[in-house]
Structures are given as C-alpha cells and as structure tokens.
C-alpha cells in the first residue's frame, strides 16, 4: 500500500474516534460471549463472521495508530498497520455485517460492532474498494437531493398512475388527489421507497383513515448509510428533514424500511417533528378506530419477523403483532423473539450486493426459526427483510409466502 493512502486512511481512523468508539476499542475483554450470536457465524462458522472477529480487525488498527501500547508493543495487542491484507479483512468483516446489533445485546459491555463496521466501511470507500453498486446508489440519491426540481414532473406522472390503483382499491369515484404531494401544513409526510407497493398500500391506508397527508419526493432508503459514507448519509437524511420542515408537517412517517426508520428516529438528533414507522401509524389508526380490518380473516398460520432496525434497534415490537393478531386466527411467535430475534441477513445494504450464496447461508438461523413455527405466511415490515426472506424461501425451498405488513392490512381492510 502506498504511504499516502495509508496516511489518508489513518486520518479517517482518527476522525471516527468519537466517544463510543473509545469505549469499544478499550473495553472488549475478548471474552467471546458474542462469538456465535451473529447469524452469519451461525450459517458459516468462521472467526471472521463472529462479532469479536470483525471488531478486532478495526480494533487492531486503532491500537496501532492511537494507542501507546500498540505503538510500543504491537505484538502484545496484535496491533496492525494498514496494508492490503488488513483491507481485505476489513471488507470481509464489514460486508458480512448487517448492523443488526444482535451482538450488542449479547455483549456484557454493550459493544456496538455495527458502529465499528461503519468505520471499516468508510476506510474501504477511501481505499477505493467499497462495493461500487452502493457507492453509485448513494451518489444518485445525493444528486437527486441537489436537483430535485428536475425529477418532480416525472415523479408526478408516475404517482398519477398509482392514484388509479388506490381509487380502485377503495372504490372511489375519482383518483385525483388520492396521493397528495407538496401539501403544505399536512399532518403527515410519508416517505416511501422506489417500488409502487411502498406507495400504493400506505396510500390506501391513509385514505381509508381520511388522513391529512402528503407524499415525499424522496425515497426513504439511505444508501449513504449502507455504503458507510457519513457525509452522504447525512445529506440523504437531511433532504427529508428539509422537506418536512418546509412543508411544516407534524409527523414524518417512514415506509417499511427498518434502516430508514432508525436513521431518522434515532440517529439524526432532535428533530422538529415526530418520526414514526408506518407500522406504528397503522396500529394507531386501528386503536383509534380510523380504519377497520376484517378480524380473523386469515386462517393460515402466520408468523412475524422483527426487522432488526424496527424491533431491537427501534423498540417497535408490540404494534405489528397487535395488528397481525387482529387479522389472523393462528399467529405463531418465532423463537427466540424480539430483542434476541435472529437477523434475516439482508440488512446493512447486503441485499443490494451480488452475494446471494452468502446470504442464503447466513439466513440459516432465520430459516430454522420459520420452519419451527410451521407458519405458511411470514409477515414483516422492512423492504430488505422481505427481499432476503424471499431469497431464504427460494434458497431453502420453503413452502411459505412472504408478505409486507401493509400488504396484509390492505388485503384485509374493511372499507
């Protein structure tokens, strides 16, 4: 590795040395309690896929460049200099971690390997070895943020077509205004994804509840965060914050995307509006009687997969379960569940990469959980989880159907 490159990487390493990172570098005793708590390790049992194995790659670099002990006695701490080998190790560590944070709840010190992998991802970007697809998607999102006016008309045309689907589903006389955009002082700004399903189903629900809402021009997914670029991640999130502030909305509702929800709700600091998941909003509508569902309409066995960023990292556990229990007669809980639920293996941007074989293997614990429930339908509330669960389903030949929560609700909406 060239000296200039190593210096550049060293600089990045130091700029990321914030307060939590200092705890995570110094506190780990390598007790190994986290060793097999990662779904990837469960599927492919090698050290590189264990949380401590991943974190140690980053920790050894920090020890080399920011700790006197690592500088003076590198052998003692196994401190490592930047080089091609360590960059390869960083790639394997970072791009096998979904950031599900199951290891965090199983670490006696609460060490957040996901945060450490964020550093690894940024180092890979600077090294020029980050996955190109994610970097390009992040760049495209940034570009859209910079020149949104160019995209508006095209997007409105797409939305006009989708309004007809909403009209049909609700049996309304006309489609106009069923998916409002740029509506000032609306109560809710709904942030969707690129797929039509992420707009149509929530639009049906919002209209059924007679909500005063508006659709965002931006997609909720944050490829900057997935790629590990803090600047782009912040820019992409700020697009939504600025739009919500300009429209003076009271609440930003995030599509079924765990990471997008967590970024806005937990990682952007204090915001002038409330941030909710569409799951919480549906639950609220049912509780307030704003929408009704056909109770007990589904008799097939149904289970729910907690998206990690919504459940373990967002605290939304009971709302989706209560919604599902209203619709289905045979609800079956996975084991382990909630905070200890296994990640499906699709998060952290992994589902966007060409790594299907790896994801099928790392999805093994999820497959076993699903099979153990005997459910015929797996419901979840995250785009990445749905894609990955479908990969698991086809990879292992499971006889199950994977559904979005909004899809289940819309299919059984009592209008």
């Amino acid at each position, binding site marked *: 590795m060239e000296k200039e490159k190593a210096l550049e990487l060293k600089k990045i390493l130091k700029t990321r*040395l*914030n*307060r*939590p990172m*200092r*705890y*995570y570098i*110094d*506190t*780990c*005793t*390598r*007790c*190994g*309690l986290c*060793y*097999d708590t990662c779904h990837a390790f469960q599927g492919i049992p090698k*050290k590189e896929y*264990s949380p*401590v*194995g991943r974190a*140690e790659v980053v920790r050894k670099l920090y020890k080399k460049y920011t*700790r*006197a*002990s690592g500088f003076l006695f590198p*052998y*003692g*701490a*196994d401190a490592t200099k930047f080089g091609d080998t360590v960059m390869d190790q960083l790639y394997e560590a970072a791009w096998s971690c979904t950031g599900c*944070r199951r290891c*965090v*709840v*199983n*670490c*006696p*010190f*609460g*060490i*957040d390997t996901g*945060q450490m992998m964020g550093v690894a991802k940024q180092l890979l970007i600077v090294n020029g070895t980050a996955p190109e697809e994610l970097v390009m998607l992040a760049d495209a999102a940034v570009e859209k943020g910079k020149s949104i006016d160019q995209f508006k008309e095209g997007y409105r045309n797409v939305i006009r077509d989708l309004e007809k689907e909403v009209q049909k589903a609700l049996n309304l006389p006309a489609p106009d205004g069923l998916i409002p955009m740029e509506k000032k002082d609306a109560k809710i700004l709904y942030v969707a994804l690129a797929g039509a399903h992420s707009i149509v189903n929530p639009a049906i629900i919002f209209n059924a509840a007679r909500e005063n809402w508006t659709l965002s021009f931006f997609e909720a997914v944050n490829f900057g965060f997935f790629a590990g670029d803090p600047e782009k991640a912040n820019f992409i999130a700020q697009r939504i914050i600025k739009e919500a502030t300009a429209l003076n909305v009271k609440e930003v509702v995030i599509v079924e995307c765990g990471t997008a929800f967590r970024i806005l709700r*937990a*990682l*952007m*600091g204090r915001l002038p509006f409330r941030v909710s998941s569409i799951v919480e909003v549906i639950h609220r509508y049912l509780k307030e009687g704003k929408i009704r569902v056909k109770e007990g309409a589904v008799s097939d066995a149904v289970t729910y997969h907690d998206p990690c960023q919504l*459940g*373990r*990292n*967002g*605290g939304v*556990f009971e709302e989706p379960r209560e919604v599902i229990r209203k619709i289905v007669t045979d609800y079956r809980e996975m084991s382990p569940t*909630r*905070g200890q639920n296994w990640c499906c293996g699709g998060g952290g941007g992994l589902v966007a990469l060409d790594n299907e074989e790896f994801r099928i293997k790392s999805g093994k614990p999820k497959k076993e959980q699903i099979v153990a429930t005997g459910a015929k339908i797996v419901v979840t509330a995250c785009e990445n989880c749905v894609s990955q669960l479908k990969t698991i389903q086809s990879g292992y030949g499971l006889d199950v159907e994977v559904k979005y929560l909004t899809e289940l609700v819309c299919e059984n909406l009592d209008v």
Partner: protein
Amino acid sequence: MWSKIFYFAMVPMVYAAFAVLIGGLLFKLAVVFFSKKFSGSLATYPKRLPRPVGVAAEAFAVPAAWKKDKVFWFFIIAFHAAFALLFIGHLELIREFKALQIVPHEVFLGAGWVGIVLMISVLYFFFRRFKSPWREISVPEDFLLLILLFLTMFIGSHLHLSARYYAGGGAFDIPVEAYREYLSSLVAFRPVVPSGLADSPHYVLVVLHVFLANLVLMMIPFSKVVHMAFAFLSLNLRRK
C-alpha cells in the same frame, strides 16, 4: 545492590504505579469526555429496567454471561466478588477500619479463600483461552495479563496462608503490624520498610508481590482492565 532494588520496588515504584494508575485513568476519562459525543441514540430494546438500575444490573450481574455460559458466569462473579474482598483486605493492611469489622474477622479477611478463589478463577480464564474458539480471538496481551495476575495472587496468597496456617510459627509469620507500618507510612508519604518485613525470610516474596502488583496497577489504564471504568459508560450508551 539487591537492597536498593528491593527498596525501589517497595517504595518509589509503588508511588509511580499509583501515579500511573490514577493519572492514566484520569487521562483516559478526560480524553473520553473531550471527544466527540454521538449525536443520536445507540439504544437497544426492549428496555426492561430504568437506565441507572439497568446499567448496574448488567454491570454487576452480567446477565449476558448467565444466558450464554453459566460456568463462565460463575467464575466472572467469583473473580469480581473476590477482587472486591481483596481490595477491602488490603485496606485493612493499611490500618484498622472499625466499619469493616462489623462482621468480626482476622486480617487478612477470607481466611485464605479470597486468594484461592481468585487464583482458580484466573486459571479458568487462562485455560479457557486455550480452547477454540477463544484461542482464535485471544491476543498475547490476554495471556500476559492473566499470568501477571496469577503470579501476583499466588505470591500474595502464599504470604497470607503461610503466616496464618504455618504450624511452626515464627520465621514465616510476618505480622499484620509490619504490613500496617509499611503501608501506612506509604500513605503518609513518610515511607519506611520496617524490620518486621525487611528481616523476614519472606521479604523477597513480599518484594516480588509488590513489584508484580505495581505492574498490574500500571497496566490497568492501558489494557482491557480499563473495562472496570468503561463498562458502565458503554452500557449506559445502550440505554440512552
């Protein structure tokens, strides 16, 4: 020559060790508190207990280990509980603390069990690392630290046990008063190594024990033992 080396380990090095320990910990904490905060929340759910209670419960009861490996949990608890008693025992070697004699006991407290529990626990931690997968994640520092702790505890335990249970008495019995005279003189910054210590045939072991303990103290801020301070801070982040 040897007397100078022994004196160095018994007096200047002890001061140096405590200076490094306290200064090191303060430096570490200062660096942490002056470094950039994380602007968002790193919380995990569900949160069953309020923050201070939850942090204390996780730090002292180590439920993460209980759920995963009950034998490991047993040794973690045994080690840390014995370490707390070890600390109290050494306080009583400085002077008498009436409050600590609520349960009347002979100094050093624990009748030898404190050291034995510590040694067995350290040996467990040490040999655990010989086995896969812990072998793969261990670094030399992990073994060195455990060896250092074991040797310090082994010699300390020997000094205690020989004084307490040696049937012949006399030669190996360094009286508590000798330790108190030595340690209280250090605390008062008027250091002396009393003849009760220096003339004992066990003096070389006392010196070795103090020397190794000095190394342990100096390593605390710059090794993973700093988890004794940072564990609370990182666990707090998970509940913020």
